[in-house]
């Protein structure tokens, strides 16, 4: 790391080294803890509860929906990104009414978009709709 010349008494590296030492110590303790058979249980489950198997499919759908939002936001604008995310998460959580969901996603995205851009004056990427929705701002 580049350390700029300065005449302060404490190097910017001192505190991070202390954090690193602490993290290593705790990490070591965690490894020992796990090797002794304490794998950690989700909050709300008792230590002896049967392990709920992961539903990887829904997890992948939900994380994809979130990632899609991140990607679409600056390419296609907030509204499209929000519709994609809302619809995707709803699908991931087991909703099987694609058209109804699309309607709800659109209404949700529009309300949020206008509440933030018009009501709170917070800029959001308008994407495709530039000029149509931005009221000539």
């Amino acid at each position, binding site marked *: 790391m580049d350390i700029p010349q300065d005449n302060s008494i404490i190097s910017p590296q001192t505190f991070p080294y202390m954090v690193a030492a602490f993290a290593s110590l705790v990490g070591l303790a965690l490894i020992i803890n796990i090797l002794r058979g304490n794998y950690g249980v989700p909050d709300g489950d008792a230590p002896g509860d049967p392990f709920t198997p992961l539903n990887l499919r829904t997890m992948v759908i939900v994380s994809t929906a979130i990632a899609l939002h991140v990607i679409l936001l600056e390419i296609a604008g907030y509204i499209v990104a929000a519709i994609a995310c809302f619809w995707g998460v709803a699908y991931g959580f087991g*909703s099987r009414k694609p058209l109804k969901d699309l309607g709800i996603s659109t209404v949700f995205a529009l309300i949020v978009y206008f509440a933030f851009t018009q009501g709170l004056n917070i800029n959001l990427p308008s994407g495709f709709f530039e000029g149509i929705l931005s009221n000539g701002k």
Partner: protein
Amino acid sequence: MANNFAMLLDGFQTAFTPTNLMFGLLGTFLGTLVGVLPGIGPALAIGLLLPITMTVNPTSALIMFAAIYYGAMYGGSTTSILLNTPGESGSVITALEGNKMAKAGRAGAALATAAIGSFVAGTIATLLLAFGAPAMAELALTIQPAGYLALIILAFATVGTLLGSSRIRGLVALSVGLVIGLIGADLQSGALRLTFGNLNAIDGIETVTVIVAIFALGEALYLASRHTLVPAQVLEIRGKAWMTKADFQRSWKPWLRGTAIGFPLGVVPAGGSEVPTFLSYGVEKALSKNKSEFGKGAIEGVAGPEAANNANAAGVLVPMLALGLPTSATAAVVLVAFQSFNIQPGPMLFQTNPEIVWGLIASLFIGNFLLLVLNLPLIRFWVLLLKIPSHYLYAGITTFALLGAYALNNSTFDLQVALAIGLLGFLFRRFGVPITPLIIGVILGPLAELYFKRALQISQGDWNILIAGGFPKVIYGLLFLVIIGPLVWNFKKKFAVKK
């Protein structure tokens, strides 16, 4: 004392202006809303609303945030009682007896004792806050940087070890938080730390991004991962949400005892509302004349913990306002809200921003009253909210959380960070690692470094200053007890079992 009273009256004048009253009302409404909805708590709600600090004046915004904080406590109990899924962490205990009462057709009495108990506890605790916080601030003026560092380390230890089922995992969460807090340019030298050449990371990782990502995205991913498609059952309320004279007679002592337990445990860093609510439940169970009812729906088991929960919320605000040290996730976000107005809570706050801080405290009294008036009559409306299908609920929370993360800086880098931290939050939830220590690490880590450096600058690099004087020694003594106490306790228990 008399001076504080005059200041409090001034605060009421501030809080009673139409604008502030409106923001207070909006806050109580939103707070109850997020408290009722499972999956979204006060920390997340305030985090999502932080962008309003760009357009709303500080007093109104902070009044609203405080109202959200109190409102969520009320709302959380409704969900616990009717759905058996706690709306937020302080209501976990309420679900034990409250849900049993609802199943036995006594939902109305459970809701009433929770709401009235919250009001009683909240009012007493806010009064203690109004006089305790300025007193603490006065004492704190004499604390040196080394003393502050000691206090922060004590807070790390208590928050890290008292939460969740595994102390090691709490400390793991804390160390991850500390590392995240290091990212970006060092405040004094400007040296870049852990940025790995990414220009976006120079300003560091926003605390709000961390909070929003870990609470909203982490939670959504976790619930998705164990999704079973069985809709939760909302219990009906039969009759009015009110209690009989007998209920009242059984409730008032638990309310007061809950307040006595909750408030002090908020002032000392005990890591949020889980410990006090749990303790209050234990005390009520031990003292009750109706022990056989516990586990089947004893009203004392709702009244005590709910009072403890609300008193605790007020208690947590004492060190937050007087020392600038948040000890719960929600207090951490409120601190961020103060900072986004360039106001630094701490000993000087009562002198530099009396209008804001007294307006805030006064609005807590008003909010508490509004919540009592709003909640019981509107209970059927809140129950309707519990019937929102979970897929729309989580779709809404996720989308809104991403907006909150983005709107802070209009940066997609923040969103990428949010996604990464969301996945981390999922792993934390899955393996029983508590989340609050991470947030405390992110927000207090940089503060710890600041005081550490200041102390060593005063002493010209002599590390002895860190333990010089009485105050740091007392604090490190307490730290020693916090670490050693549970170990001795465990050892004794093991020894006893072997015998």
